[in-house]
């Protein structure tokens, strides 16, 4: 099965903003690229190619000192924002040249998510959650099939949903009936040609107190979806 490749010129969700905690380095995968994610002490989120430009070591094993990301191999420090190398321990008096720079991807934070683009993105998908509503984020589920298969499966129906609509190709919204009227939002992150991460949140004006049974129900639905899609992919 061959399908058109996914355009790089758009925004994709990578993780929840609150998961990108200070002094930490997270790792994400988007369209086959590994990305090192880190937040500086001023709150700015960075998404860089996950390899040091010097000797290729994953920056996600590096150290976030609040201002720089420090590579574990040679201690080179790369500045938040620009990715410019600002210090090379082996040459402490050297001002590193422009070329000593981590490859920086476009990154924004909106609606509680960190979004990245490998290309020149257009507009973000709009997530309209009425202001008085509450939302609960579900556990993201990784599925080892192409993103379009996941989008097609969700589009064809979701348990207890009256309708599922496609906001844009990889953002879907299921209008829920039953216990919690509201909607479920699915944000798809294509990790590679053959793997996808489903981010999802439930929004409602009538969420149950602890939310646990709701989380369990949706988690079971998405896990079943994953198992079915992976079984179909394996069988074909």
């Amino acid at each position, binding site marked *: 099965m061959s399908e058109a490749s996914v355009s790089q010129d758009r925004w994709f969700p990578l993780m929840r903003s609150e998961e990108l905690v200070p002094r930490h380095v997270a790792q994400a995968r988007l369209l086959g690229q590994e990305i090192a994610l880190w937040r500086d002490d001023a709150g700015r989120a960075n998404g860089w190619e996950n390899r040091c430009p010097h*000797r290729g070591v994953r920056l996600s094993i590096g150290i976030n000192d609040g201002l720089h990301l420090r590579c574990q191999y040679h201690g080179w420090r790369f500045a938040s924002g620009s990715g410019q190398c600002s210090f090379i321990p082996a040459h402490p008096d050297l001002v590193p040249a422009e070329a000593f720079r981590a490859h920086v991807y476009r990154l924004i934070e909106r609606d509680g998510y960190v979004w990245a683009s490998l290309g020149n993105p257009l507009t973000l998908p709009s997530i309209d959650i009425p202001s008085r509503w509450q939302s609960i984020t579900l556990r993201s589920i990784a599925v080892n099939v192409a993103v379009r298969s996941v989008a097609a499966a969700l589009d064809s129906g979701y348990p207890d949903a009256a309708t599922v609509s496609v906001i844009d190709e990889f953002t879907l919204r299921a209008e829920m009936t039953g216990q919690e009227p509201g909607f479920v939002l699915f944000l798809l992150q294509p990790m590679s040609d053959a793997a996808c991460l489903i981010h999802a949140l439930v929004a409602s004006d009538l969420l149950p107190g602890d939310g646990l049974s709701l989380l369990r129900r949706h988690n079971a639905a998405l896990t079943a979806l994953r198992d079915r899609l992976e079984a179909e992919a394996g069988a074909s």
Partner: protein
Amino acid sequence: MGLAGSFSASIDPVALDAWYPVWADSELPSPAARRTVLLETELQITRSRGGNIAIRALERSGELPVIRRFGYIWTSLGNPTRDLFQIPEFDEPDRRNLAAGSIGVRASAPRTVENFLDLGHLPIVHVNYLGIEQKAEIKPYDIQITEADGEVLARNCRVYQPQASLVATAGFEVEYTYRVPHPYCAILYKSSAIDAARSDVIAILVQPVDQDRSIAHMMVSVLDDQSSDKAIRAFQQFIFGQDKPILENQVPTRLPLDPRAEIPARVDATSSMYRRWLRAQGVRYGTVP
């Protein structure tokens, strides 16, 4: 034409015809048989009751050539055009020669060798042993390809080390010389902590399992009449244990030979020379050519 015709096209002639360490001599009892993988080829190494060593490639007939040197058993899958290199210090009578460990690494052989040649990482990865961050500066050193042997040679490399070896009682500025006599083997000469006129010799002899995996065999030939074999081995393995997670997080696992692929600083003169030297010889195995 030997076995060459049946090997993967990805194995370049230089890699195919080279000698490779495949087992520590001291780790092969008599009689015994062991299996390992070299250049994607499964080997069986046997030592008879009488002590004779034979190496066969499984699924192929005939025996492979054998050399025993530096405490390791070496073989080749091709037709070696020259003898294995020499380390004259190994034969000096007052040295402790040890096979210090054979460690599997999920990295290509050239990445593993380059890590061994790397000066800049010593005060960072091996902080408080082979360097300290306050004295991490690496001054210019001399780098050349030797006329006589065509080896990469880096001399007058200096780095301050708080614990240069097991017998070092204080920190001192250690002088390093590196030799690369083989695409996947490198030798380090570092000032002895107990005799300023002589050097400890440490070699990394890498067995390429495939293009992305290798086994790093470590050889030490040191001036040390105090430490036990076990302690000397443990020190080397501890140091390599600090390098292994770095090596296994280098992307790509193969060594890029295009100088634009990874940006070097002045401290990387040896590494840059090593990459050019591999390319000039036509070594492709384990590299991004």
